[in-house]
């Protein structure tokens, strides 16, 4: 059966998308509150997003 595999990968990508979206949104909030900490927030944001992205890609390559 091929459908469940693809559906599973799709679910993982949705999850990763939500995760990265939340990170980005929270980073925006944080930057709006403390614009002077923009650099640090961006760095932390990119690292967290990269970690989630890895999971998303792993799911795509499992298909």
């Amino acid at each position, binding site marked *: 059966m091929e459908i469940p595999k693809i559906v599973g990968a799709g679910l993982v990508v949705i999850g990763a998308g939500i995760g990265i979206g939340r990170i980005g949104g929270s980073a925006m909030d944080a930057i709006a509150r403390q614009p002077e900490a923009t650099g640090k927030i961006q760095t932390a944001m990119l690292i967290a997003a990269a970690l989630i992205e*890895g999971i998303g890609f792993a799911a*795509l390559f499992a298909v």
Partner: protein
Amino acid sequence: MVLSKKPLHFFIAALVAFLPLVSSANPEVDSTKVAAGTSHAIETAHEESDEPKDVKTEIKEFIDHHLKDSYDFNIFGYKDEAGKQHHVGFPLPVILVDNGLQVFSSSKFHNDNEVAEVNGVFYKLHHGKIYKVDIADGEITMDEHHHATNAKPLDFSITKNVFMIFVVALIMFLLFKGLAKSYAKNGGIAKGAGRLFEPIVLYIRDDIAIPNIGEKHYKKYMSYLLTIFFFVWFLNIFGLTPLGINVTGNIAVTACLALLTFLITTFTAKKDYWGHIFWMPGVPVPMKIILAPIELLGIFIKPFALMIRLYANIVAGHIVLMSLIGLMFVFKNWIGSSLSFLLSFAISLIEILVALLQAYIFTMLSALYFGSAVEEHHHEEAHH
């Protein structure tokens, strides 16, 4: 805004003016055929003798070929009036270890069978891999799973990817050697290309190495971090040129880069690093036993994620970009093709950003792992 409005207007006007030229890009099928066969001289010759394929299959094959490594360096291909495929490029040396060293040019594969004869031994190129065959027109024998059963010699060839790694290494060596000299001459003041690279080097030192590794230990890791950053960045940028290079999108290359980070982390790790893996301080004993295997697994997952992330990002970027370019030939009309042109233009810009971002993330995470390896913990903190 630093940009004055005039050049921006001119740029947009030029873009709109050139749009129809590109979107009408030769709506005949053979314009895609030219695009479809750049990476393999002989294979396309084989394929063309078969039924003419539809554009979508050709685009898919072209993308597959692009993502693979090859023994020739093809710059571009075209088709003459008679429908014969021509390739412009140069062959690269093939180096095999098989009863001693066998070195020959990959142009020997350029015949109908893709079989090269070297010192009385026949080698056949089959789907980008070299196999041994008995006779000049030998065939590859297959088992029931469609895996070739022929003997495979050890392959140390200078393939396209290896060639590009050498080129980038040479560029980096000349560039930074030259910069080091110019600094010595000018009394420590940046000049020429140094004005571009000095802020980047300083950024890596001040915003990647020092915060993550710490003032005390960062110096010994700087050379590696700078090398990996510029190496990955340059290769990513080369991957976006029309030369069709896909080095960081090759999992073997990213695996080696990740392996280097893993080895450096493991062999420069201090007592506290291992302490936190095998006997996590500050947690109850049953928890320590549960955490140890998880942390141990983490050692290997970290470089593995590093490998997958770079590889997947670059491959995904290349596939998306080439599919969008391929859409121009699928649509074959003014509206669809100009839309996909605009889209591929936008994606190209994003890819330039991704090229930098992936180099940055690779460097950043490497620095993070090195930092965890040399960190010295004050154990009273653990009891808080």
